[in-house]
């Protein structure tokens, strides 16, 4: 119990709430990095997934790419992003940028896979009916296909969001701060209290993200589709590579 007492004392120590290693600063770095990465990941992955799902073009290539993508460990994305960011921007590759590039790459595959899978499962007769009603392709996509596939699409976003929040601590390795900074400091200083306190915060963040997206997923389903659909946390992203 003494150890947990020390952990509590760490959280409440005013010294940990001031300066350039303050808890609120690390939290802000963690959340801003995660939100930015997920946002840009969405902006890239969603159009790709929608295009592939609607037209059926490039499906094989996309599946192959995201399978390889999923085999790359999260640490690998940050490691690879590091020299890329140095090469592209000649900025020494330290800080926000390499972590950001790595997390965006991590966020893309589950969203592409699930968006594509969700659209593919839409009943072709719905599409035909919409076409018969004189809808244009874009209208069919936005008013018929996306609402029907929304649960599966959001399941992919949820997998990405949790992966990004959970991997953001590794940004500390490339000087990107986040709560991972405490873990690396703690490991270097053999300060188990600091490591443990930070790990608990990371775990809580991930669980809260998971629950928030689960809630969003339930809320976002069109009432007309409220019949029981498989909304499993994994969705199509649980399909093993290969």
């Amino acid at each position: 119990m003494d150890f947990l007492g020390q952990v509590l004392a760490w959280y409440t120590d005013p010294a940990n709430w001031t300066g350039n290693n303050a808890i609120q600063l690390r939290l802000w770095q963690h959340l801003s990095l995660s939100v930015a990465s997920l946002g840009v990941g969405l902006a890239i992955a969603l159009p790709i997934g929608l295009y592939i799902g609607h037209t059926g073009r490039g499906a094989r290539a996309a599946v192959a790419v995201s399978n390889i993508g999923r085999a790359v460990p999260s640490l690998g994305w940050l490691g690879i992003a590091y020299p890329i960011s140095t090469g592209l921007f000649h900025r020494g590759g330290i800080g926000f940028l390499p972590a950001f590039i790595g997390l965006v790459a991590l966020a893309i595959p589950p969203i592409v896979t699930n968006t594509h899978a969700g659209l593919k499962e839409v009943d072709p007769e719905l599409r035909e009916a919409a076409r018969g009603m004189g809808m244009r392709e874009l209208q069919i996509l936005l008013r018929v296909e996306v609402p029907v596939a929304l649960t599966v699409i959001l399941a992919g976003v949820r997998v990405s969001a949790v992966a990004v929040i959970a991997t953001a601590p590794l940004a500390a390795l490339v000087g990107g701060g986040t709560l991972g900074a405490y873990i690396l400091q703690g490991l270097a200083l053999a300060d188990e209290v600091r490591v443990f306190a930070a790990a608990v915060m990371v775990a809580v963040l991930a669980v809260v993200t998971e629950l928030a997206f689960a809630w969003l997923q339930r809320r976002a389903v069109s009432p007309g589709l409220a019949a029981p659909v498989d909304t499993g946390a994994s969705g199509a992203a649980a399909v093993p590579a290969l």
Partner: protein
Amino acid sequence: MTEGQPFFQLDWVLDNLDTLAQRIGEHMLVTVIAVVAGFVISFGLALAVRRYPRLYGPILAVSGVLYAVPSIALFVLFIPITGLSLLTAEIALVSYTLVILVRNIVTGLRGVPADVIEAARGMGYTDRQRLWRVELPIALPIIVAGVRIATVTTIGLVTIATLIGMGGLGYLIVNIGVQQRFPTATITGVAVVVLLSTIVDLGLLAVQRRLTPWAKARGG
């Protein structure tokens, strides 16, 4: 990356094949221990569920929560108890395999058709004989599918174990590649991880096909 240094130096890889082999060895050792230990525990839990079906919900819930804890956090959460040791890494890795393996073993056993079980009973098989000679062979493809997912997942996760001093391919990615600013090591490490995952996955698939020749005939 220092100025003017090429992105990838093949010479370095060729000059360090022995280091590479050593890191692959470390990586696979940690992986195999985790998957074997995870399988033994999961098999025991699945047999308990076979006898007492009510246990399934609570077991899935607990292993599901463990699975949701971010890997970086799980790798360091046990340091206060077990220190910077292989045990700490294995506790985290085994935890992640449980939800995958228990679910697949139980699903496999439950998928055995009721008339097949009746037939075995009618032939006078004891409970144990029925398990080993009828149910497990039928469940094998689903069980191996679980082992494949667990193994590929573990190979990826072991890269993080370098943070608590366990070496492996994560050492190339982080300790040499990132910390010494040498992208060649990072790229090599990631490529070998992807390659290892693919080879092991296909290898396990081949093993499963050999063990269940009848499944192929039915298009399984």
